């Protein structure tokens, strides 16, 4: 009964005063918002929390989103927003920060509207113009308390750019547009700009054309230079600058003027008392975008909106007055700096293509002073946050950069590739590298596990050792760059990787490898190499390490300065440096990068110069499979099915002879284990070998080691003979063989890493490398060394010297126990039953090393054999 009454009552009220339509609601809240400015003409310094502005904005947002639920057509509130350029007004207020906090509220409002709306609003002239101005306000170089909101706003734009594929289409199409613009932009007059940036009210009724992007619009989000006549740059709204209204022709003169202005303004505070009339005029002429509503709306807008037009006019006056009243020298100087940058951008953009190519070779870092160089406004803004002290902010900026860089759009990728993004990213790497304290222990580097993202352990405030944070910060950034080079569009990735090679690896690291802290640097390089996944960056790093040339070096004439340096470092006095460098070589081999392996080893072996053909012809001394097969062929029992899938070079049928060569190399009296148990190494190598075979399958290595054309006489192929005579295993293998000979005098640590390194080389499924390292049976070119020859000589030397030591057998046993039980820690003279000098100990340790190394080689040979049968 009562409820019935209520309904009746409500109906009666509805007839007398119908409920407000959403549009009425909308305009009400908008007017209320405007009222603040009318009522606070002189004191707009109230904090925004104490005003009703956030509340009204929330209502506006709610109404806009609710209206979307009613259908696909744009509703009246959205139309109102677009027609009256509400967002432009908000952007103006945000840039003026009136009242304080307005910028934060506006960023948040715009972000929510853009991400929640189901319409791709970004294409709207009335919206993206404001968005551009908001982007320009986000600058990480200026410490800002609202960084977080700024970065979220930017990220949301990245998201939108990706979400609506036609944005990328527009970017695609605009390659023509951009070129046309390049040629025509001088003649673009105001009406032409109006035509593309303003949508007449009548057309807005038609949803389809409205929400189809207009070609030239979204591109300007990426490419603000498109309309780079001074007239149409929206930045000038907040910079109150007369010169911007001047013609294009005078642009080059503008720069000094700005400087002048900046100086005079900052010098005389009386500037702040410039008449508001003056300021207003300047502002109007410099911001056609903001001006448009005043020009256009009265002609095109339905009557009902007239009140609001007045309101917005009022607002303009207000905001201008606010701007002028807020006008202080510091802000002016900042604005001028901003303008300066933009102008420089314009000036330099013409010669961009040429200078970019040059800059590849000649990268200078003047850019750190003037980073905004790209044509992508959004990217520029994101870049400004990468040095933020706040990890989260920085990582968010990195996320944004990654998203933009990985957009699958050749035109956009070209813009990014041509920008200074890679230079800036590489510069930060250098800065972080230089911050690493020199006293960090190289041994601490290995265990650092960081990633660039928010999940990185660096964010957990651990302090594992002094300097950890800085080392971790460096590797975090390195990880980001590596992932970026992996994920980015290939054009971007390549430029990025090259820039890092040139401006960091070559410019900074090469020198550092021969400097005072080479041990730490080597450890850092090793860690970088290990952490960088296969990507353009890992390829460039490989090129840095072994040089770009793929032809073999001539003995003693080394082309690659880095490899040269590394090999020299292996012959220094410092045991630690030798160990670290051997570890780096190990990482290089483990990388299984085709270029690295080729330049380091394979290019020297591929001619098979170590193989003595003349001896092979006699075939008496030879027991290789090759000979066996030849014999078989002669006998006529051809077995074609066999040997097609696996290599006879890698799996010789004489495996037992080969194993014996290694296992019986060391004389019995020097052996510390009676049974030559090489089986215990097999498990590990087997696992590793099956992975390696998979990894190396793509390298297209030959299956068999063959000398080019066996039957050809030596006169017809003189170059092969020459090759053989001049056989040079290359600087790296030569170094390894030298080091093998040096085993008796080298520290245990060095010998350990040396033998590991060679074992890992021997494990590679490459026929020539296999022959050279693992097949003692091949006929060797006279006077040339193979691994086995070196080991033989070494053993001979040991067999001569070791028996001179008293009780050597017992000491050997004792040493073995120590080494295998890993109790070197309690190495004190008390524990030693038998006295020995330091040299003797080193010598005896080397015996055990050689013994175990021979077993390892036997195990590897067997594993390779076993794998292919």
């Amino acid at each position, binding site marked *: 009964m009562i409820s019935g009454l209520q309904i009746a009552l409500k109906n009666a009220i509805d007839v007398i005063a119908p409920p407000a339509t959403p549009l009425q609601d909308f305009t009400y809240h908008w007017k209320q918002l405007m009222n603040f400015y009318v009522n606070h003409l002189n004191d707009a310094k109230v904090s925004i929390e104490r005003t009703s502005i956030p509340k009204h904005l929330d209502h506006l947002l709610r109404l806009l989103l609710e209206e979307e639920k009613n259908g696909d057509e744009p509703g009246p509130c959205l139309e109102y927003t677009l027609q009256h350029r509400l967002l432009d007004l908000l952007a103006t207020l945000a840039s003026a920060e009136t009242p304080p906090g307005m910028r934060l509220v506006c960023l948040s409002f715009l972000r929510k509207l853009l991400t*929640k709306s189901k319409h791709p609003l970004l294409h709207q002239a009335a919206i993206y113009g404001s968005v551009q101005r908001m982007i320009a306000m986000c600058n990480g170089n200026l410490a800002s308390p609202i960084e977080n909101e700024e970065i*979220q706003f930017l990220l949301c734009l990245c*998201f939108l750019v990706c979400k609506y594929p036609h944005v990328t289409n527009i970017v695609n199409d605009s390659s023509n547009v951009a070129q046309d613009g390049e040629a025509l932009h001088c003649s673009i007059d105001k009406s032409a700009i109006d035509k593309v940036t303003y949508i007449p009210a009548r057309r807005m009724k038609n949803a389809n054309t409205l929400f189809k992007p207009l070609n030239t619009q979204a591109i300007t989000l990426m490419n603000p230079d498109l309309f780079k006549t001074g007239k149409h740059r929206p930045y000038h709204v907040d910079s109150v600058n007369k010169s911007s209204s001047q013609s294009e022709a005078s642009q080059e003169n503008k720069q000094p003027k700005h400087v002048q202005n900046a100086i005079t303004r900052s010098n005389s505070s009386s500037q702040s008392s410039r008449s508001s009339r003056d300021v207003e005029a300047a502002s109007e002429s410099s911001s056609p975008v903001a001006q448009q509503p005043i020009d256009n709306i009265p002609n095109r807008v339905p009557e009902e909106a007239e009140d609001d037009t007045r309101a917005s006019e009022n607002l303009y006056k207000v905001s201008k007055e606010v701007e002028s009243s807020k006008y202080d020298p510091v802000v002016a100087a900042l604005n001028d700096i901003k303008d300066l940058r933009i102008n420089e951008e314009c000036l330099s953009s013409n010669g961009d293509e040429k200078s970019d190519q040059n800059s590849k070779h000649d990268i200078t870092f003047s850019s750190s002073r003037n980073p905004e160089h790209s044509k992508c406004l959004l990217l520029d803004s994101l870049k400004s946050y990468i040095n933020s002290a706040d990890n989260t902010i920085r990582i968010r900026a990195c*996320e944004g950069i*990654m998203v933009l860089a*990985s957009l699958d759009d050749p035109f956009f990728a070209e813009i990014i590739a041509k920008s200074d993004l890679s230079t800036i990213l590489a510069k930060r790497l250098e800065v972080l590298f230089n911050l690493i304290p020199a006293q960090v222990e190289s041994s601490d580097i290995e265990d650092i596990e960081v990633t660039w993202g928010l*999940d990185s352990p660096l*964010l957990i405030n651990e302090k594992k050792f002094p300097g950890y944070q800085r080392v971790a910060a460096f590797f975090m950034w390195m990880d980001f760059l590596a*992932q970026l080079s992996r994920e980015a569009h290939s054009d971007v990735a390549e430029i990025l990787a090259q820039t890092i090679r040139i401006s960091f690896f070559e410019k900074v690291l090469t020198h550092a490898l021969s400097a005072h802290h080479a041990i730490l640097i080597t450890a850092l390089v090793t860690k970088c190499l290990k952490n960088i996944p296969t990507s353009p960056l890992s390829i460039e790093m490989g090129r840095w390490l072994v040089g770009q040339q793929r032809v073999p070096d001539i003995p003693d004439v080394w082309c690659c300065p880095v490899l040269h340096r590394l090999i020299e470092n292996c012959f220094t006095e410092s045991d630690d440096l030798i160990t670290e460098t051997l570890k780096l070589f190990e990482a290089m081999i483990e990388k299984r990068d085709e270029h690295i392996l080729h330049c380091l080893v394979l290019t020297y072996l591929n001619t098979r110069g170590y193989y003595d053909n003349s001896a092979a012809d006699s075939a008496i001394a030879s027991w290789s499979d090759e000979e066996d097969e030849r014999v078989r062929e002669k006998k006529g029992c051809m077995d074609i099915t066999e040997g097609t899938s696996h290599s006879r070079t890698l799996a010789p049928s004489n495996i037992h002879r080969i194993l014996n060569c290694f296992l019986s190399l060391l004389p019995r009296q020097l052996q510390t284990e009676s049974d030559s148990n090489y089986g215990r190494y097999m498990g590990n190598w087997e696992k590793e070998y099956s992975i390696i075979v998979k990894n190396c399958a793509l390298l297209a290595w030959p299956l068999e080691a063959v000398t080019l054309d066996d039957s050809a006489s030596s006169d017809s192929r003189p170059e092969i003979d020459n090759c053989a005579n001049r056989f040079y295993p290359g600087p790296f293998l030569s170094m390894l063989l030298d080091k093998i000979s040096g085993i008796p005098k080298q520290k245990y640590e060095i010998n350990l890493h040396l033998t590991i390194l060679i074992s890992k080389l021997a494990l590679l499924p490459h026929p020539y490398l296999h022959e050279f390292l693992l097949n003692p049976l091949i006929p060797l070119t006279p006077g040339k060394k193979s691994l086995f020859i070196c080991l033989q000589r070494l053993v001979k030397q040991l067999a001569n010297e070791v028996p001179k030591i008293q009780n050597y057998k017992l000491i050997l046993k004792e040493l073995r126990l120590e080494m295998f039980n890993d109790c070197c820690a309690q190495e004190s003279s008390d524990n030693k039953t038998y006295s020995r000098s330091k040299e003797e100990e080193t010598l005896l340790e080397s015996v055990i090393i050689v013994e175990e190394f021979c077993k390892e080689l036997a195990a590897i040979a067997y594993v390779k054999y076993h794998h292919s049968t």
Partner: protein
Amino acid sequence: MSYAYLFKYIIIGDTGVGKSCLLLQFTDKRFQPVHDLTIGVEFGARMITIDGKQIKLQIWDTAGQEAFRSITRSYYRGAAGALLVYDITRRETFNHLTTWLEDARQHSNSNMVIMLIGNKSDLDARREVKREEGEAFAREHGLVFMETSAKTAANVEEAFINTAKEIYEKIQEGVFDINNEANGIKIGPSHSPTIPGGISGPGGQGSAQGGGCC
């Protein structure tokens, strides 16, 4: 609050399947019908108990948007568990599972436990993917399967906890090298009473959270 282990999880799947809602339900025990799009990566954490041991789950909620995959791929590294989510009311989210799985397998460590989740089981009337299909897919690819509802909280706890149990078993079997942090498992600080990282306790949203959420 100390923990015995910390497991790193990642939640993946198409946009709009309810990844963020699952996380919110698990960490905060509440449901937000209109959840904002995840932009970038967000974070949540909760403590659970398995076998009498405190285990902290550190969960990374990723954006399902194709464009954000480049970022997501960085987060696969060092994850011990993954929840691969699809929406039972949208067939296409089920159809995309293979690409997600490929991505996950390629960029994570081979021992990562992957749990397949058909979300929105409360919307049975609008179901487009049969339960059996999910089961079959899981069987074929060696995944654990479950249907959940972030709205009613059905199976949400179980999904997260069963994944943790599976990881825990793998640790017991010695499959995971717990000393290698790259496996997404960390042994808790034995003495320190505070949790590193300023990451809040059970149910708390961490400090790292905040991208795109409003």
